[in-house]
């Protein structure tokens, strides 16, 4: 028996040794020839394949010693793929992230500090407020790429059906809620799907001028009577069926789908999602008008930011930072903004007359509307340590209030207590 085992082990060792010598290993970092860097983007194929490949080709022509391999990843899979790649020693060199992912990875010390890696004159090209939104512990961990302030897209046909003036969309959140009630009553479809899923109520608080953290950021500040009243208001709307039951489950994707199906009168969304409506339902797209996003009492609008980060695990950090600077330079940002309704993070690109030129399509209108919003917009992502834990608690509290497990007051009181234990 023992001999058999020894034999088996010997055979296995030989097989593994043979396999090990024949398995392909990644090229050594110092291998001769051009340096290959890998760029990961989020959901840019197929709409922007031509634009991105064109940009890469131009870079490769100007830098013959650098090759760029482009991989487009679905947003849901990005975090897993990125971690797997880092763990496997094959991290991408430049990766497109949103603010939340950037800050989470920054907290784990996984990204290159751009304040240190980028010269001051290059840093100064970006809007300082957008650059600052990628800061964790005083350091910025991504190069701002494009920003997408929300706009209000609304279905004029449903407005008319509800007896509303389609030329006068709601301008405040109070008006939005009242308009939605009229649409629900008279047109028989939902008026809106508020952004209250997951942890997005943290942004709702800020939009209504309510703080999330104390000034020293050591305590949760969302337990006041005003916070409770705001949450209770939305809970009441939910209980009275003023927005769909999948609002908390499906978020903006569900809202975009419902709007595209002609089953939702108003959609507060990034203007780039109008592309999806256009391709999914041209009839609804024809009836779509765009207006500034209704503002709350805080007078501030969220400014979701996309950035390019360089993982510390990248083997070519210098080349990666150089390439990321190229992708986010004025010319490339402006060219990208001409592909879809997004906005640049650099001052010179944003000053281009293109953004103030009108047009007749919903996208043209969205561009005009959104560019005016930029002044009052900032990224409302809440930066906290142990964000995963705190976010999980907040999500549970909000859902508990919406589904009647706790009152709004109990839910927020509990969440504040749990946050304070961890902050």
């Amino acid at each position, binding site marked *: 028996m023992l001999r058999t085992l020894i034999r088996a082990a010997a055979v296995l060792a030989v097989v593994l040794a043979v396999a090990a010598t024949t398995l392909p290993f990644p090229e050594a970092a110092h291998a001769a020839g051009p340096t290959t860097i890998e760029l990961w983007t989020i959901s840019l194929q197929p709409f922007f394949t031509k634009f991105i490949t064109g940009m890469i080709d131009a870079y490769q022509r100007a830098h013959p010693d650098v090759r760029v391999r482009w991989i487009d990843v679905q947003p849901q899979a990005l975090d897993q793929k990125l*971690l797997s790649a*880092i763990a496997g020693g094959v991290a991408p060199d430049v990766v497109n992230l949103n603010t939340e992912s950037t800050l989470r990875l920054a907290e784990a010390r996984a990204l290159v500090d751009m304040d240190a890696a980028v010269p001051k004159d290059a840093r100064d090209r970006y809007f300082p407020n957008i650059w600052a939104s990628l800061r964790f512990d005083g350091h910025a961990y991504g190069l701002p790429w494009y920003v997408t302030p929300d706009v209000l897209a609304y279905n004029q046909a449903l407005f008319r059906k509800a007896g509303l003036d389609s030329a006068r969309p709601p301008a405040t959140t109070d008006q939005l809620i009242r308009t939605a009630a009229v649409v629900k009553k008279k047109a028989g479809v939902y008026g809106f799907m508020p952004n209250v899923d997951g942890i997005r109520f943290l942004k709702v608080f800020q939009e209504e001028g309510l703080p999330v953290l104390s000034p020293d950021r050591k305590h949760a500040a969302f337990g006041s009577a005003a916070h409770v009243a705001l949450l209770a208001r939305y809970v009441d709307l939910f209980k009275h069926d003023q927005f769909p*039951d999948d609002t908390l489950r499906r978020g903006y994707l569900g809202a975009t789908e419902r709007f595209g199906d002609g089953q939702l009168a108003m959609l507060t969304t990034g203007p780039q999602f109008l592309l999806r409506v256009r391709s999914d339902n041209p009839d609804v797209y024809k009836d779509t008008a765009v207006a500034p996003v209704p503002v709350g009492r805080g007078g501030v609008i969220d400014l979701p930011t996309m950035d390019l980060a360089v993982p510390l695990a990248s083997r070519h950090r210098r080349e990666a930072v150089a390439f990321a600077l190229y992708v986010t330079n004025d010319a490339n940002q402006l060219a990208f903004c001409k592909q879809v309704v997004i906005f640049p993070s650099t001052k010179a690109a944003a000053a281009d007359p293109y953004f103030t030129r009108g047009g007749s399509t919903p996208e043209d209108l969205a561009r005009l509307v959104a560019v005016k919003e930029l002044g009052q917009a900032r990224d409302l992502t809440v930066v906290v340590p142990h964000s995963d834990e705190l976010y999980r608690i907040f999500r549970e509290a909000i*859902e508990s209030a919406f*589904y009647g497990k706790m009152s709004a007051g109990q839910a927020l009181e509990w969440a504040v207590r749990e946050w304070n234990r961890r902050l």
Partner: protein
Amino acid sequence: MGRPRVEPPALIPAQAAGTRPLARPAALRGRRQALARTVIAYLFLAPALVLLAVFTFYPVIFGTALSLFDYNVISPPQYVGLSQFAALWQDRYFWTALRNSAIYLAVVPALQLSAIVLALWVRRPLRGITWFRVAYYVPVVTSIVVVGLMWRWLYDEAGLLNYVLLRIGLIHAPIHWLSDPGIALYSVMLVTWWKGIGYYMVIYLAGLEAIPSYYDEAAALDGAGSAARLFYVTIPLLRPSILLASTISILAALRVFEEVYVMTGGGPIFSTYTIFYYMFDQAFNSLHLGYAAAIGVVLAAITALFSALNFRLMRQGGLSYY
């Protein structure tokens, strides 16, 4: 070539004509043949062994060791002993997930029972029965993403399910299948049941085909009715298949992830947050890979326990038992 040459017995000197000079080469040859057989056997096994070593044994060993470390992929692992298991004990989300996974196990008996009934149904020599078999098997080979999307539409407030129930008057208001924390888990379990039934049906069909018909005929001759033949002949003889199918089903139920991921994301209020989903959440959303590994170890222990229990309950039966 290379083998020891055996001289004819007539040429062997008389004093050496014992068994040893003859036996040594024969024994050597035998040993070499045995060695050759062993090597060949292991060479045949090698591809599978290599794959198992790389994709199963190594991850299992690495994962178990990882549960003793605080590790986030980015920083070097820090040894923390059993503290992550102690943290699990006090982690309310872990217990929520564990409770949900325990409830999820209820899908196993329902699934097995219905798969047996279905296998008995489609085994009958009816015209076009093959089409039914194929139809029941289609969900098995359908992508879980497609299945999840399809069921999400069916479950929608204005979806087909609510429409039918409202039309026939069984309900007076739409049911929030995936949004009501009280029923969301059961709604997801129904999808697992629907997707899995065809797979287990095939296992039971194979099991039924393996039972010689004379057992049934002998029982019939002895006056046993159809129900008695089913419960006292067919089901006991089907036990090996039940053991296999229910063990696979238990493992699948404890490791359920895709349905939850596609349809509910663990909500509402973590009512569909299963243990596997929590492990995923800790690993990839929170970057607590060591903690996730600790959850994995606990899950593996629970799985082993249920499998052992199942073997104990189901090991008797089948043709070899009689």
